[in-house]
């Protein structure tokens, strides 16, 4: 058990080292969600003038979407990095080591929970500077739980695809799916203002629950009524994508 924790920790440190040693590769993932928040607010900000929007501040309405984008991009990057390790043979060397595969996978995907703190911190700092509402202590706590947890979910998805295709060329596929999971929600406007078909999709998309949970702190007050579905959704998605990634790592080399 102690050895497993040590291996997991070492793999997480290795993932963090990449950010420090190749900062150029990390910068776009850190900056992009912030530019997304500001860019989308500038592009679609006038939507708040549409009747029925509720007069909310658009940057605060949009913030939860870009918070999850931080997590999505970070998780996707984790998957792409794993694909690179597979291509270069590094992961094969790990596989022959006397370490359970679940530990190897755990080290890779849990690193996303730490790495996401960088874009998350940057996004919140820039957001508050540009008028984002402070969600309160409870809202911030919710952000610090849900966003890293969703990064792990995204990393599990990324890892499962990386293990399936075994090439970095799978990167856009990883990113596309995670991106769409986040955007097929009430991302641009409240459910009632979406086109009927998108409203129907958003209602069954589990990520919408996470966005609504995060949004409550930014546009009103955090309530348990919106928090527990968000927590439950992330847990469920984590179990599903975690199982998918675990299946992938167990089948590798067989």
């Amino acid at each position, binding site marked *: 058990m102690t050895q497993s924790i040590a291996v997991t920790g070492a793999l997480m440190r290795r993932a963090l080292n990449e950010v420090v040693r190749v900062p*150029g*590769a*990390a*910068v*776009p*993932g850190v900056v*992009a*969600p912030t*530019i*997304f928040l*500001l*860019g*989308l*607010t*500038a*592009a*679609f*900000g*006038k*939507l708040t*003038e*549409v*009747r*029925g929007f509720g007069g909310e501040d658009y940057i605060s309405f949009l913030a939860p979407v870009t918070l999850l984008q931080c997590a999505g*991009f970070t998780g996707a*990057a984790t998957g*792409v*990095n794993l694909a*690179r390790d597979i291509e270069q043979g590094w992961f094969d060397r790990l596989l022959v080591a006397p370490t359970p595969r679940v530990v190897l996978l755990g080290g890779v995907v849990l690193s996303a929970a730490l790495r996401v703190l960088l874009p998350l911190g940057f996004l919140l700092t820039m957001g508050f500077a540009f008028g984002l509402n402070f969600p309160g202590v409870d809202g911030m706590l919710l952000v610090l739980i849900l966003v890293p947890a969703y990064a792990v979910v995204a990393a599990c998805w990324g890892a499962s695809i990386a293990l399936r*295709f075994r*090439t*970095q*060329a*799978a*990167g*856009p*596929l990883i*990113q*596309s799916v995670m*991106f*769409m999971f986040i*955007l*097929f929600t009430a*991302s*641009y*406007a409240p459910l009632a*203002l*979406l*086109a009927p*078909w*998108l*409203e129907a*999709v958003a209602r069954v998309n589990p990520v919408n629950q996470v966005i609504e949970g995060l949004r409550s702190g930014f546009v009103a007050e955090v309530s348990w009524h919106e928090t527990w579905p968000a927590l439950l959704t992330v847990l469920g998605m984590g179990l599903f994508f975690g199982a998918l990634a675990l299946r992938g790592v167990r089948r590798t080399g067989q």
Partner: protein
Amino acid sequence: MTAAVVALARRSIRQTFRRPQFIAPILLMPTLFLAVNTGGADSAQTLPGFPDVDGFLDFELAGAMMQASMLAGITGGIALAIDIEMGFIDRLLAAPVPRPAIVLGRLGATGAMGVLLSAWFLALGFVFGASVHAGVAGVLLIAVLVPLAALAFGTVGTALALWAGRASVVQSVFPLVFVVVFMSSAFFPRELLSEPANSIADYNPMSFIAEAVRDPIIGSITATETLKGLLGIAIVGAIGTALSSLALRHRLRAT
């Protein structure tokens, strides 16, 4: 030279179609984004100052084509970077292949993807009720502008690949595609953008290209918009070509 360019372009096109990982982001992602934008911001049509259009899809089609063109350019760059990583480019450099052909072959494939993209989005638009007001001439104009735009964005992807030589670095530029698109009038009318997008869009070549492509869809072909679009393509292409040349020279010196 021509034979080498054609052969390498064919290889690149085959590579794109053989790997769903390459074709999916170019076609699938902008298509899904088009759906999300159309479904999510549909109510924007009621805003004062929004252009008179038959439907929000008509307005968004040009944006989707532009987004797809940029993604095609970046994806071409990723494929080139993978070729560099795998040593394929080194083998070409050692072979009696004209060096510009190595880049031109990849760009030719990106241009061909542009033809496919314009056909795909026009077909999609027609299926879901959009129309091209300028008729056949409008369709032909779009079929010329979109591949040219893809080619221009391809030069930028090529420059990145030659400079970095690593697919992960080129791939990390992927999210920035959306930034360029959102800071232009590709998805929303320039007059209704808030600052700073409003000011940036006035100078963003993407705005010129998107408006030139949108022109025949929502109205008629106008010389001013078409020329502005061609100017935007020329600006992107010139910058990308210059950067590609510099990066190729740097890479050749290094090898």
